[in-house]
């Protein structure tokens, strides 16, 4: 059995038995939803429906319903895309990278983090689709065998790399998430009273029997998938960043983008996990599992990645000056002082300054403060993408073509719609899926549970 020093903070608080964990994790599925859930769900559903309406309007009428123009060809669409993909990063990082590094604290949060990954990648994947002028011909991006002679996709295009990167990431994350869910579904199945429910969970749990062989295969597969998923954490956002980095537009054409984007993605992903878990923790009374220590850990990650992002911003400025290219220099001066200065400084404030509060233990263990910062960081990261995309495009090489961008109600509607869609999925998930990987969590109950730690302390090690 895993040994953990008694001076380490316990990861499970309270006098929990295995059964307690089972009951508490299964509770949201087995009980009626609290009123707050219904309220949140209705709101999310409303936003989602509004978003669908806006998407249908776009498809029916044309991209002209958005605020774009001949100079700014991408704005909220790709901003939202990158933002959602970035958010999706934390799940894989927590479940895969932290698994490989044997960070046990991940166990209370990895399930929800991965769910968040899946759901946000779904949102992200929407945008490359609907931003196309001719969505109905979107299948042209796949290299399918055809009779048009040697008609292939353009393998030079980063947008094509995106297609592969996102789809790979989505499928691996989905499998990884599902594999982890199998023993937990089995637990729900075993407890279910309603025959329909029981049947559904029976199917979902793939006949899990909890045999030693099952556990062995489960562990092995998790490890293999973690190994597979880890490079994806780096690759996806690297490739997304190449949409910009390989172009010739000043402000996009930047070699620092891959690491900078990955750091930013982890930063925003953790912030989103923080937001969601603070809600889940409160709504389902999971304070004993998602402890203050978890929150503090995540705040530290946010602080670290936020600082990396800050260094990246400053490096960009330095490189613009150092390059001696007047277009590049102007692009960055324009970002900070041009018509979109407010976006740039919102980004700077939210992403670079606000995480610095986390140096103070008092602040990083304050739930309300943490919640606020987690929202602020996500606003900041949205602005980062907006700044990169819009402020670079709106004033590029020829001043004659300079323009501005202002979102239309459709732009806003679609963005809100994806937020709605995300929460619809997430809220449904919290009612039907075990939000904590209880099977995994049980493995550390005796090493990291507060009760056992106390026992150990009181009675010594046996």
């Amino acid at each position, binding site marked *: 059995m895993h040994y953990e020093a008694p001076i380490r903070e316990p990861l499970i608080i309270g006098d929990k038995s295995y059964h307690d964990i089972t009951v508490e994790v299964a509770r949201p599925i087995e009980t009626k939803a609290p009123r707050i859930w219904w309220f949140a769900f209705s709101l999310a559903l409303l936003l989602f429906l509004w978003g669908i309406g806006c998407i249908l309007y776009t498809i029916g009428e044309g991209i002209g319903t958005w605020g774009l*123009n001949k100079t700014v060809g991408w704005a909220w669409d790709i901003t939202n895309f990158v933002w959602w993909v970035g958010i999706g990063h934390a799940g894989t990082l927590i479940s895969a990278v932290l698994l490989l590094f044997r960070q046990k604290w991940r166990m209370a949060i990895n399930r929800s983090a991965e769910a968040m990954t899946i759901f946000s990648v779904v949102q992200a994947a929407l945008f490359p689709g609907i931003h196309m002028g001719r969505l109905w*011909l979107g299948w042209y991006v796949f290299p399918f065998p055809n009779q048009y002679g040697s008609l292939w*996709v*353009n393998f030079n*295009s980063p*947008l094509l790399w995106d297609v592969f990167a996102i789809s790979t990431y989505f499928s691996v994350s989905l499998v990884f998430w599902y594999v982890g869910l199998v023993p937990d579904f089995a637990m729900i199945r075993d407890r279910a009273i309603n025959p329909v429910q029981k049947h559904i969970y029976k199917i979902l749990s793939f006949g899990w029997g909890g045999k030693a062989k099952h556990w062995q295969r489960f562990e092995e597969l998790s490890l293999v998938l973690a190994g597979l998923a880890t490079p994806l954490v780096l690759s996806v956002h690297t490739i997304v960043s190449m949409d910009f980095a390989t172009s*010739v537009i000043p402000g996009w054409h930047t070699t620092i983008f891959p690491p900078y984007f990955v750091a930013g993605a982890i930063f925003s992903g953790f912030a989103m996990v923080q937001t969601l878990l603070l809600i889940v923790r409160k709504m389902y009374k999971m304070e004993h599992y998602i402890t203050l220590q978890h929150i503090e850990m995540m705040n530290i990650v946010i602080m670290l990645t936020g600082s990396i992002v800050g260094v990246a911003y400053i490096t960009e400025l330095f490189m613009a000056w150092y390059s001696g290219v007047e277009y590049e220099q102007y692009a960055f*001066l324009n970002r900070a*002082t041009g018509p979109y200065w407010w976006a740039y400084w919102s980004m700077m404030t939210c992403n670079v300054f606000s995480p610095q509060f986390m140096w103070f233990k008092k602040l990083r263990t304050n739930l309300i403060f943490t919640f606020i910062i987690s929202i602020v960081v996500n606003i900041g990261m949205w602005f980062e993408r907006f700044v990169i995309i819009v402020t670079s495009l709106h004033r590029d090489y020829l*001043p004659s073509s300079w323009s501005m961008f202002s979102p239309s109600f459709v732009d806003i509607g679609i963005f809100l719609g994806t937020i709605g869609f995300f929460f619809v999925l997430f809220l449904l998930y919290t009612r039907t899926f075990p939000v904590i990987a209880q099977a995994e969590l049980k493995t550390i109950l005796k090493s990291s549970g507060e009760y056992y730690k106390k026992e150990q302390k009181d009675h010594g090690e046996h």
Partner: protein
Amino acid sequence: MANSKKYWQGFEDLVDSPLAKKFQQNEFAEDIPSDEFLGNNEALGNSQTTRRDFLKYLGFSTAAATLAACETPIVESIPYVVKPDSITPGVPTFYASTFFDGYDYAPVLVKTREGRPIKLEPNNLATFNKGTNARVQASVLSLYDSERLREPLVDGAETTWKDALAKVKSALDGAAGKEVIFMTATVISPSTKKIIAELKEKYPNLTHVTYDAVSVSQKLDIYQNLLGERAMPRYRLDKAELVVSFAADFLGDWNGQDVAAEYAAARKPGKNMLRHVQLESVMSLTGSNADKRIKLKPSEYGAALVYLTSKVASGTGHASAFEVGSLNDQLKPQLDEIAKELVAKGGKSLVLVGGNDIHLERFAAAMNMMLGNESAAVDYTDRVYLRQGNDKEVEAALKNMAAGNVGVVMTSGINPAYTLHGYAEAVSKVGTTVSLTDRLDESASLSNIVLPTSHFLESWGGFHPKRKTYTLAQPTINPLFNTIQVEDILLSLTGNTLSYKDYLKEFYQTMVEPKAPENTWNIALQNGVVEKEETDLDYFITEAEIFSIPDLKQRIIEALVDSSTALAKQKAGSYEIVFYQKIGIGSGNMANNPWLQELPDPVSRISWDNYLTISAADAVALGFEMSNDTNGGLNGNYANITVGGVKLEKVPVFVQPGQAIGTVGIAVGYGRTACGKAANNLGVNAYTLISGLEHWNTDVTIENIGGKHEYASIQLGHTMMGRKIVNEVTLADYMNVDPHDWNHHHEFATYKGKLSANETNIWDDLDHETLHMWNMSIDLNSCTGCGACVVSCHLENNVPVVGKEEVRNHRDMHWLRIDRYYSSDMSKAEAAKQGYSGVGLIGKGATDMYAEMEIPSESPDVVFQPVMCQHCNHAPCETVCPVAATSHSREGLNHMAYNRCIGTRYCANNCPYKVRRFNWFNYMGNSKFKDVNPAQDDYGRMVLNPDVNVRSRGVMEKCSMCIQRIQYAKLEAKKKGKKIEDGSFTTACAQACSTGAITFGDVNNKKSEVSALKEDERAYHLLEEVGTQPSVFYQTKVRNRA
């Protein structure tokens, strides 16, 4: 041998058993149990479906299926039963013709496809006005304007021609005791004039009044007095080395003369390059091309001109005692300088003056005489008849009409109720009014009888634009509607049974070519242009006097003293207004042409609007502000202006760099109420402010009423921000300094040493040596910014029109745009001089420099730069398209496969030149564009070029270098078995460019013009340091100043 091989189906076959034989003969292996079914009568009788029912069902379903099939839309596409000789589907036919609408004149070639005129091209046989400007280019669409009248109207009700003409005749007969006025725009057709004379014979009480909406009548009065006929001298800019223009917008419109080609030819950089000095109030297209531009108020024109004349007179040994009005002291040294230059150039100069003022014109004419320009740039012999309006006749006619002395007023080709002050009121006192017009416009809706006239592409015509030239017009299509051309209407009124075609032919044979045999008519029709020595065309010129230059000179100079006294009385107003014409809309007669409305003004870069231009200083003084919406849309305030007691409300105000302080300008031709869907309710009608056909007025009050006007401005950044975009050099530097100093090419430090952008390469390039390599040269020195290329491109390539709101949203679809940049008072050198350093956190630095660079100078230098797809050989767009919808050709072109495009817009984002245009909406079908896009109209659609497909929604499009023309030329050359000759074809933009700024060709053909231009020391690639290696290159602009 091979077919003797036999395959057995089984052993039975092999042994040839009888059973096998039987099976072979039976069609079915087993018996079909048909007897069981049909033989059993009882079962059949019991069945619920009887035979009759079965037939009923069968009948019904057949009928239903047939009916359902009938709902398929039927597209009529009927092939020729007997193919006309002149038409081969897919092959264009060209006819020579002449465009004249009372404002613009151009000999043209009409391109027809399958019997439809679709494009106008310049007639290269012509030597006079051979350019086709934006309005001429666009005029083909007016043919297909569905707002044209289709039937004659009497008292608002449709009727037959017979009835309508009978009504006109009885009105004319009934007006015996009273006057009959026939009011037309300038008529330059001698045969038409002859018909009018015949009409006058029949109705002696008829007066023919010539009215130009934009009048130069007072100028004509001088020359009528001197030369005996209403004509202007022909101005030859190609024979001048210095032109001094007082408010003459000669590149926009010079009394109908198109001098742009000659201007550009004279401005080829070199020792004798034409120098251009402009003195004006509004920033005109001409002023923006000037080497030196001086801001002047209209009230100062007189004093400045008289002052200059006196200096020139004393410099050339003429009497110089004129009364000079009050003149700004700062102006005097500048005028002294100009006078010195003029005297130095002697007979190789030219002084032009704009407006409609007899005194000003007298001084300009006198100065030209003193300098001896009549032997070069001012040609009194080959004089021009393109403007013949007579203000006195118009005034008299209005007076008579108002007095009730007029029985019938007939108007033709004009719209006086819209353009002429006091007409609407006067005409209400007239018994019968007849409008010969193409649409139910403001005047026609006041008329009793409206006779719809044919478009010039449906009409015959013979024109005499200047003394030595006669041109013909021929119809290229049957009248689309029930219309008759003006001359045929007049002929029937005179009682002549000849058709105008025959009348014209007879006229030609008796008057133009009396000595020639029959077939010169056909040759003349084929060529379109007849150019003769003057005596040969004098058969129909009866009025002209014999004159001698010394006599003319004396008569002009004699009158100067009186004129100087008149000019000295000129009073300055607190604000002074100039009425000008926009490049696109001109006098406003083609206002319902969406191509022209969409064409941005070359200087202000605003389309679909007119506005009051004002200087920045006056805007501050009066509290006018310009602002931008968050989407970049430009906004302005409104003003109420009063000119000479007439008030015009809610005029948008636009701050124009280069506007003289104390002056405002406004374009005529807008504010239409009955012109058509595209033109109605755009802008304000400035004609209402013009009370005496003047071009400016000094009695103006302006009241700021605030509000927010939304402009359709196509350009947001107005200065070059210190970048090498339009490369510019002074003539002195061009002549004396090493080209590397003024046409600097970036070099990159590589492991191979210093390399230019074109040599640094990590690509596997296509073979650009073996076949053609199409390149385009754009001479920024020749480009005047006139916009003809933009319209020509629009037509040739079926570019959608998107309307005011979408232009405002920066979603114009122009494949070719003309960028206009102003100079700024701030530059990098200036910033260094003022000690700006660092970013600008402490003290002034780069941020301040750039912020100040964005502000155009109050007296800016202006440059124009046509930008289309640069066809980069290392194209940023091509690498990023995920589906390879845009890719490169071996011939140096960047292709678009519209069918493959999925519309990610990544290519447009990555284009450093921002020339890619996205189909944001379905412009062909979306009802939002119904009023503006001609392609949505059944008639307007007929103008689409069948060689170019119409792009669907969601697709990226851009300049293709007229690939359809390239392919056509290649196929033609292949058929002939020859190589493509340089100059045998060109792109639509190059063809429309009268100044020859655009040259297209194959650089692999070493004899081609473009390959020589590529080696020119002025040549450079736009943004060459990005490494895109474009196929388009530019020639440095040379300013003729020290």
